[in-house]
């Protein structure tokens, strides 16, 4: 750049342009950095504040004990942590295969009216308020079983996961170049096998991103659990019994009049975020180790 400038005949004019350009360059860089900071700031602020408020209340008892009766100091959220894990496991078990399956259909077989309908319905479903999804799960599971249950909570969260997973899976599979499908057909590989072993496998990391997005979103949901999982002050491992969940417990404790419960609500929120980040990172780590230098 410097040597070029020396070679320019109209030295001053070139210098001026170059200064203006450099200013623009710096401005653009500054703008980009500012936006990154603005985007990351809330995340860091939330996490920092949660650690600040919550870390003091996290101790062995909090992680291993069930809640004490109102007014008594101590106790913990162990049953809520376990309940959340249970409900999320049910939701993932139901939602992930259905969502990925729908995404595969949309991308590989859904270039038609039926596909367009599914796309539309799934986009609408994505916008339905979570409390309404809770009512649906209440109607189809709770009313039939005659009581609240982990299963009902899992179903509600699964319904919320499906559209997100389906649409991201579709997008990711569409990004896989047709050349790979043709290469597999050319080897005499049947279509179903090509779809699973070539197309889906090539798009794995993108599909996982969609699954994790959906998982992280529903992991913090409270509203759809209010009248499905309902909450529970005690341990429960049965799928058809009311079950505690971290978001519910946080909600109950946060609106209570007791200081100790408020502190525990902060701690619960911190544990919830750590659980989500931990689960997402663990899945990414395992998937990355399992695939060979995918671009």
């Amino acid at each position, binding site marked *: 750049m410097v040597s070029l400038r020396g070679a320019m005949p109209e030295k001053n004019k070139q210098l001026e342009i170059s200064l203006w350009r450099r200013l623009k360059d710096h401005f653009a860089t500054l703008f980009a950095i500012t936006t990154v900071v603005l985007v990351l700031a809330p995340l860091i602020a939330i996490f920092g504040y949660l650690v600040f408020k919550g870390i003091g209340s996290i101790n062995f008892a909090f992680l291993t004990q069930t809640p004490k009766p109102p007014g008594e100091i101590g106790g913990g959220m162990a049953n809520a942590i376990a309940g959340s894990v249970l409900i999320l496991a049910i939701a993932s078990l139901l939602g992930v295969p259905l969502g990925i399956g729908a995404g595969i259909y949309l991308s590989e077989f859904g*270039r038609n009216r039926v596909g367009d309908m599914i796309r539309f319905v799934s986009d609408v479903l994505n916008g339905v308020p979570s409390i309404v999804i809770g009512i649906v799960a209440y109607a189809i599971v709770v009313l039939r079983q005659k009581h609240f249950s982990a299963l009902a909570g899992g179903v509600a969260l699964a319904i919320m996961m499906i559209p997100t997973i389906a649409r991201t899976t579709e997008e990711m599979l569409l990004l896989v170049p047709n050349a*790979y499908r*043709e290469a597999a057909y*050319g080897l005499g*590989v049947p279509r179903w*096998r090509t779809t699973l072993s070539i197309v889906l496998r090539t798009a794995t990391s993108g599909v996982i991103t969609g699954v994790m997005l959906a998982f992280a979103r529903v992991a913090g949901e409270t509203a759809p659990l209010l009248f499905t999982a309902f909450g529970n002050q005690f341990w429960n491992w049965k799928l058809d019994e009311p079950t505690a969940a971290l978001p519910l417990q946080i909600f109950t404790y946060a609106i209570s009049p007791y200081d100790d419960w408020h502190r525990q609500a902060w701690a619960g929120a911190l544990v919830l975020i750590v659980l989500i980040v931990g689960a997402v990172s663990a899945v990414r780590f395992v998937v990355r180790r399992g695939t060979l230098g995918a*671009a």
Partner: protein
Amino acid sequence: MGVGIHVEKLNAWYGTTQALHEIGLDMAANHATALIGPSGCGKSTFIRCLNRMHETTPGARVEGKVEIGQLDAYDGISPTLLRRRIGMVFQKPNPFPTMSIYDNVAAGLKLNGYNKRRELDEIVERSLVSSALWEEVKDSIHKKSGASLSGGQQQRLCIARALAVEPEVLLMDEPCSALDPISTGKIEELIFQLKAQYTIVIVTHNMQQAARVAEYTGFFLLGRLVEFDKTEKIFTNPSDKRTEDYITGRFG
């Protein structure tokens, strides 16, 4: 061993557009046949009809007769089974990006449920030797991804992948058009060796290439086979005026 290919009254469509008109020719076993012609003349569509790849395009349709050896390609056999007997190499190298070199070569067998480890090892090595890639990659077939190779190596990997399923016919759709001259030279040399075992059909835009590798050449124009003869004859003394115009560079 390669088998001959017999084509009779072959017509093909994309939707309502007819891409091939009444193609008929016989390609000799264990020889290379080159198909030349300007872009859009139907030569790629033609070889995609040979392994029934044409019909994977939405709206595509084929009529007529194709026989691969004794086998009627369009009657009594599923496209999937047919394609196991016909290897295909594409214009752009397309190794599976998530698979190692080894898995790429073994893909055709593994994905069809063949899992005998020791035999697979043997087949993979033999195929890579046949495609003249073994010496360059033998130390890293499990470590390196197929996509990490150079373009020319990737194309030879794709040839190895096609050979691993032990086809009788090898279809090559402009296999060198994305490659540099050195890689092109290697692939042409390879085609020469492969003729001993396979019947080769190669689509090419490069007339010198057709002259170098193929015993027979067919000239396509506007979806019709204008002339089909010994390569020598096509390039020195073509019977049709249009062939002559094309090979002397008057159009196309």
